[in-house]
């Protein structure tokens, strides 16, 4: 389990990094935390000609806030979300999700942006990105473009990342105050990638669901939103029965994989179970307005 030969460079600036990505003779890849890429290299499943190590770009390790958004730099690591009072105040769902993400050693190195690029269908950060309508700033030697999380992730089937591009920054919208939230995942061992994961956001006004969001992981080729279910809930009165009804809609909307972990059928079943749980918990957390 040793990687095949590759060129390696460790640029000191973003420009140099983009150049190194652009002028590689063949496939070049960013090396961020290495927690997904290095295992793949070691089993020779990927064979990039060049690795561009971005770990010297320390200025890119940040979590900063604007009024309604959190900006995440491409070197922000999983650990930066852990026990972080500001995260827990503004985006507690991220603080909750990171607890389920791997083990401390992996969290110390792995990056948020690396996780989106790797795009494991059951990973926590892609789930959060689609739930929270993240905006992705992608940069290459030829320019900058913006993507939505949903579009980007659905496009990119793990572990392909557009070669020669750098996911420089991600912005996540902070949910409106009073929104109820919930995240849960089902796995065999704490820290394992989930078999199925679910996250919900809920605002309740006048005793009715004003807005609802539902994202599921592990049920498709990437994490995804279930807009059909969301629309069904809007305007309805929150109740256990409503959540069960929503959950009942879920299985038919999914085309989950069968693998060593679970069959498609069991994944559908779990997705429904988790859907009910996340909505019930989000409801309990939501501040009721205008009752």
């Amino acid at each position, binding site marked *: *389990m*040793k*990687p*095949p*030969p590759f060129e390696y460079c460790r640029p000191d600036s973003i420009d140099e990094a983009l150049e190194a990505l652009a002028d590689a003779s063949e496939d070049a890849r960013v090396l961020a935390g290495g927690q997904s890429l290095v295992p793949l290299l070691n*089993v*020779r499943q990927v064979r990039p000609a060049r690795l561009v190590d971005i770990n010297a770009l320390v200025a890119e390790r940040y979590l900063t806030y604007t009024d309604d958004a959190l900006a995440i730099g491409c070197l922000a690591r999983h650990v930066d979300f852990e026990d972080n009072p500001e995260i827990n105040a503004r985006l507690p769902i991220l603080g909750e999700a990171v607890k389920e993400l791997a083990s401390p050693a992996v969290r110390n190195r792995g990056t948020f942006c690396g996780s989106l690029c790797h795009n494991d269908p059951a990973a926590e950060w892609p789930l959060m990105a689609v739930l929270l309508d993240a905006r992705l700033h992608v940069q290459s030697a030829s320019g900058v473009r913006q993507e939505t999380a949903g579009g980007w992730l659905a496009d990119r089937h793990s572990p392909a990342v557009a070669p020669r591009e750098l996911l420089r920054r991600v912005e996540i919208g902070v949910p409106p105050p009073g929104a109820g939230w919930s995240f849960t995942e*089902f796995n*065999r*061992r*704490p*820290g*394992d990638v989930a*078999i199925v994961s679910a996250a919900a956001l809920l605002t309740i006004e006048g005793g009715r669901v004003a807005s609802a969001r539902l994202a599921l992981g592990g049920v498709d080729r990437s994490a995804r939103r279930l807009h059909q279910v969301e629309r069904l809930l809007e305007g309805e009165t929150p109740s256990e029965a409503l959540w069960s009804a929503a959950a009942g809609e879920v299985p038919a909307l999914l085309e989950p994989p069968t693998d*060593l972990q*679970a*069959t498609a059928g*069991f994944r559908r*079943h*779990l997705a429904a*179970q988790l859907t009910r749980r996340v909505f019930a918990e989000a409801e309990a957390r939501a501040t009721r307005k205008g009752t």
Partner: protein
Amino acid sequence: MGITQGMGARVQRVEDERYLTGRTHFIDAMALPRMLTVAFVRGGEAHARLLGIGVQTAAACPGVSHVMTGEEANALCQPIRADRTRLGRTHYAPTDYPVMASGVIRHVGEIVAAVVADDRYLAEDAAEQVRVDVEPLPPVLSVDQALAPDAPLVHGTLGDNRHYHGRLENGEVDAAFESAHRVVRTQLRSNRHCASPMETRAVLAHLDADGRLVVYTSSQMPHMVRTKLADLLGLPERNIRVVAPDVGGGFGLKCHVFPEELILAALALKLERPVKWIEDRRENYMAGFHAKEECIEFALALGEDGTIEAIDAAFHADGGAYTSFPFTPSSEPSMAAATCTGPYRVRNLRTEAIAAYTNKSTLSVCRGVGLPIVNYALEHSIDRAAAELGLDPAEMRRRNLLRSEDFPYGTPNFTLYDSGSPLESLEQALELMDYENLRKEQAAALAEGRHLGIGIASMIETTTYGQDVLAPFGKSDNVALHESAALRVAPDGGITLSVGTHSHGQGHATTFAQLVAGVLGCDVGDIRFVQGDTDTTPYGSGTWGSRSAVAGGGAVLKAARQVRDKAMQVAAHLLQIPVAEVEITNDGRFARKGGEGPSLERGEVARAALYETNLPLGLDAGLEATASVSPRSPYTTATHIAFVQVDPATGKVDVLRYGVSEDCGPMINPTVVEGQIAGGVVQGIGSALLEHHIYDDQGQLATASMMDYRLPTAPLVPRIEMAHLETPSPHSEDGLKGMGEGGAVGPMGAVPNAVSDALKPLIGWQPISELPITPERVHDLLRRHGWRG
């Protein structure tokens, strides 16, 4: 301190400092000048004819010294074989196990070539360039398929796919089943497990200044490796030195002699340069041996009061590709059959044990060998019987368990259980877990919609595997059953103890030293413990089968007593008193009984003996002894209780509490015993809930990494609660018994029992017919029995 560090003391493990501070000598950290690294090219098919191997491109790659193929390797090294005598009517068909595939590839991961290069990176680059031409053959991928009449043959020269087929019948089995009040017949499948030691296999071979072959190997049995190297490479055994340095766990995987050890030795001899191979995890999972996968049919004939009248059991093991050495695929099912009456009073017994060749990695021994399977089958059947008869599982056991006064007890398997306390252990475990309250807690939780389950598993553990257990089946032909210890006292009174066993986590540097401390009244710190080097330790077959305390420790006690007796004679002479008047004081001095008058330090006695300054007439100089023990098998008894929660909505099982009452005779060091139990229980919980090697329908191993072969992790296991009983064995030095494997045995019965118990209010008591207990299997079981939530 002296005697205070002897038998029974909770002495802190002396080896922990080196492990915890990383000052260890694992083979991966060793380097020799001009050393080369080996990467193996392994077959990618489950079953295929090997048409040709092209090595030119690989041999021309940068940094490559040599590419060895099967043709060359098999000419330098004879195939591994494990022959046996005294088989009676038992069918036993061993194979040649060539060190590299010869003509046919029989499992994914079988070695087809070895690339030797300057480092492992270059070796792997070149290994990719080796061309292997094959013609696929139909693979045999399960024991059922292997035994079907029209099955393809894994080994064409054998008439069928059976490696081993043994039967036994004792008593009136048919009559007992005919007249039974009730028959409980269960079909079960156990999972394909593997040892997963933290350190994978590793070998470093070189020639020393005299041209002797030196082989460092991560092994549990260095002397056996030396013997086999000599045998198969055609070298005088005196010209081989095998060293097992620090070894990062074995669990039975490393008590075999492997093709890789022989190939590395052949390469060192050929290239006259040091060569090293560190196994990666993928290789370990593909080509390190597997364990436990069996199809089991288990039937109990029951009397009206729950008495077990007869057992009829069949164990069919999916034995994998080759006959391993010294333990073979027969070990798993034959040990299961040989122990399948467990700790119960049973008179009538019929067993069948089969190991069949399949196109998978070879299946051999792993912690518990057969016993975990028996625990699953027997204990699950007992709980099923209890449910069907309307008895509490504890009561069902009370009615059938042996009591301490029943020992020695001859089983219908012609085994003699020497001693033990199964019933007492059950009662102790129930008390430990507060069984009555646990049942109340379970009922209260159920009222709130939470499903808790209690699973009891009683067990008896064969330990040490002496002549009495192994010889009747010819299994002792391949492995030395005695163990020796050599103890030398230096002029300063310090002691060097060298042994043929091998500790790779078990703590022998502490426990064996405690045995010496107890006899000679010294501190554990006065003793230098030496193991693992065939040049400096007496011959022995190493550490496996929970034998080290009884065989190795027994030899240590004997040697220590011989040294003590001689030291007493010298001391008596020096003190001018009769030998019978000499005693060793608590601080290790030699003095007149009662403590009056002058006394001597051990060093003074040693100097007198070694310098012949003042020896009694007729006594030889020196203060050392070598002793050996040819043990019989003492039995350890235990009861495990698992307390679990099952979420019927998702099928998830959480182990909330786990308790063990164990009687392993006198404990040399209770802390070490508890560490062994805890580690074993964790491994057993892993077996019951998580671990399983899956082959796809082409015979590709789908679980070749730790992402997919799931080991238990710390957050999954509760603190393990323990209580002890101490019934000495009449057979062994100081009544010692083995106990290294039992921890891993009980969870195989206790966890499934707890899950069935938890689901009982929803679907009645249903057996868990397949391990591991995955959430999806629990979900399917609930669905199958009509529960929809």
